[in-house]
């Protein structure tokens, strides 16, 4: 069952989902994301920040901007109403100068999940094997350490657990050098659901959940950022 969000994005000629579309898609598959709102001005942004809870991140919503950070479209670690107002002004100003032709639909205000272990879950299509799911340690370290494992979708809970255990990141999750234990089963759950999302939506050619932040045992994990590249099948 292809999700409406993807059909709509393709019909508008877009090849990447907007942030809030990506979160909506994740939510539809039961993958936890930090609370967020899409708003059109700073007054709404302040209201939203208080609803989702500080600290928040504010990001520009635009179909024309691929790398938001490069054009000053993201402000992180905002802790109060005044700073929300300031951040909205700053982003508007940056976009005006650095991406003057970009259409701006508004701001995404999102609660920031604090202090977890960052991992990546990815999906791609392989000519021989079909849908491939990737797991690894998050951020730039992924590529340096090549600490990743792969499985072919659809994958089971056992598959997901074994792909987690195959990486060195697993040692970080079970309390390496008195680090807190992470919520491993919540990650298993996300991997299995993500595998289903990839299988049911063949228009997604590539996807990253990066980072997925793993909290301590019992507190779950959240897909904090997501990128979905889509194309008509």
């Amino acid at each position, binding site marked *: 069952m292809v999700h409406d969000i993807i059909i709509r994005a393709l019909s508008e000629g877009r090849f990447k989902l907007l942030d809030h579309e990506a979160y909506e898609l994740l939510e539809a598959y039961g993958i936890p994301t930090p609370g967020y709102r899409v708003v059109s001005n700073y007054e709404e942004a302040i209201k939203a920040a208080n609803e989702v809870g500080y600290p928040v991140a504010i990001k520009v919503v635009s179909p024309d901007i691929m790398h938001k950070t490069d054009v000053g479209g993201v402000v992180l670690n905002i802790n109060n109403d005044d700073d929300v107002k300031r951040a909205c002004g700053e982003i508007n100003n940056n976009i005006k100068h650095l991406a003057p032709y970009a259409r701006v639909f508004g701001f995404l205000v999102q609660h920031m999940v604090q202090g977890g272990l960052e991992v990546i879950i990815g999906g791609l299509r392989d000519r*021989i094997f079909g849908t491939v799911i990737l797991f690894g340690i998050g951020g730039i370290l992924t590529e340096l350490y090549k600490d990743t494992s792969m499985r072919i979708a659809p994958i089971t809970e056992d598959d997901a657990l074994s792909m987690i*255990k195959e990486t060195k990141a697993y040692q970080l999750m079970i309390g390496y050098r008195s680090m807190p234990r992470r919520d491993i089963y919540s990650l298993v759950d996300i991997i299995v659901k993500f595998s289903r999302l990839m299988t049911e939506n063949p228009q997604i050619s590539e996807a990253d959940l990066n980072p997925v932040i793993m909290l301590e045992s019992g507190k779950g994990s959240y897909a904090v950022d997501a990128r979905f590249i889509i194309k008509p099948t």
Partner: protein
Amino acid sequence: MAIEQTSEAISVGGRGIEVLFYPSSVAVIGATPKPGHVGYVIMSNLLSKFKGKVILVNPRYDSINGVKCYKSITEVNDEVDLAVVAVPAPVVPQVTADAVKKGVKALIIISGGFSEVGDEGRRLEDEVREIVKNTQVRVLGPNCIGVYNADNGLDTFFLPEDRMGRPPKGPIALISQSGAVAAAILDWASRRRLGIGLAVNYGNKLDVNESELLEYLANNSNVKVITIYMEGLKYPGEGLRFLETAKKVTQMKPVIVYKAGRTKASAGAVASHTAALAGDYEIYRGAFRQAGLIEANSVREMFDLAKALATQPLPRGRRVLVLTDSGGMGIQAVDTLSTLGLEVPELPETIQSMLRKFLPPLAIVRNPVDVTGSATDEYYKIVLDSILPTSYVDMAIIIALMQIPGLTPNLVNYIIDAKRYGKPMVVVSFGGSTMMEKFNESLEDSGIPVYATPDRGARALWALVQYSMIKKMLREGVE
């Protein structure tokens, strides 16, 4: 045989594959009296060894070396199960059509010159595919060296016996993507008397592919372990089929795979080899693990592991008794075992004090148990009999450097006797004397695998633990 097998057979696929391995009559199309030719070697091998009827076909001869030769397979009156085709590629469509007309059940097309050489070859391959389409006839190849079956002497490997030895009957089967590698493996195995009873190379897989061969071998009760030499799958979607098949097969018997073409550079070399496009190695590795395949790092390791999996019971845990007459060898074993996630637990004080009573004062009894260079056969017996039957260990690696004066060939009997404890054992024996060779042979003849170094023995135990986990006899969970 210790390896348990489920009786559940695979229902899908594998149709008509058996006749490729067990035909009652074989026609050699392209038989020739000219030594050195492919058709000659295949003909000679079949005439001298095959326990079934051999029919020669070549329009140029009435008889070859006193055996009747037919102009065409359609002239043969008797039933022909299998046709082995060794004629130039342009003639293959015609002889295939004749074979189909004659009513053969399967063909092995040895001839090269098809999709692996370009467009003209691809056209010929399509032509052959068209001829067998909508028939029950199965095709192995083209561009392959076919089948070796030690059981009935079916042997289409076109390498003369003085250049390539043939291994004895045995429980190991080989599926090889490369014909040359298959031939080299069989030659090597024959020198070591390693029982690769069945081997098959499938070439361009116009029809029969590795997944179907795997299914067939899973259901062949002579086969205890399947080994696969793979460079890369070729067609879109094949990966899932292979994965699904392997998942089922690995619950029935162990399957070991060695994947060549792991790096970018060697992946390029493979792509120009059997016209195969080697996929990204990391994806293969993930798929192998998902399917429960045991991955070897080299061809040699593949058979090191196969030997243990074919003969040993499966361990119920990860704890290893290291019994050695050399401290240094013992440490090497512990190093590899620990790296591979196996355990070498210290033995409980009760066992240690009992061992101390029987062993000389210098012996170390913690585990590794080091019976030292003054060991006799009896020391080994005492240790095996007092530790293997307890619940403290799940398997044993027995290092016996036979160079020390106190050991005799009789040690073999003590080790064989310890099989009754039902726990896996591997022996490490290293040296070149005739006595040692005999020692190793007697052990292997009794189903106890022998390795030249501790790390190879340790890896063999690891493979047993892996397969226990694959069969879910060991639990997997979060620590």
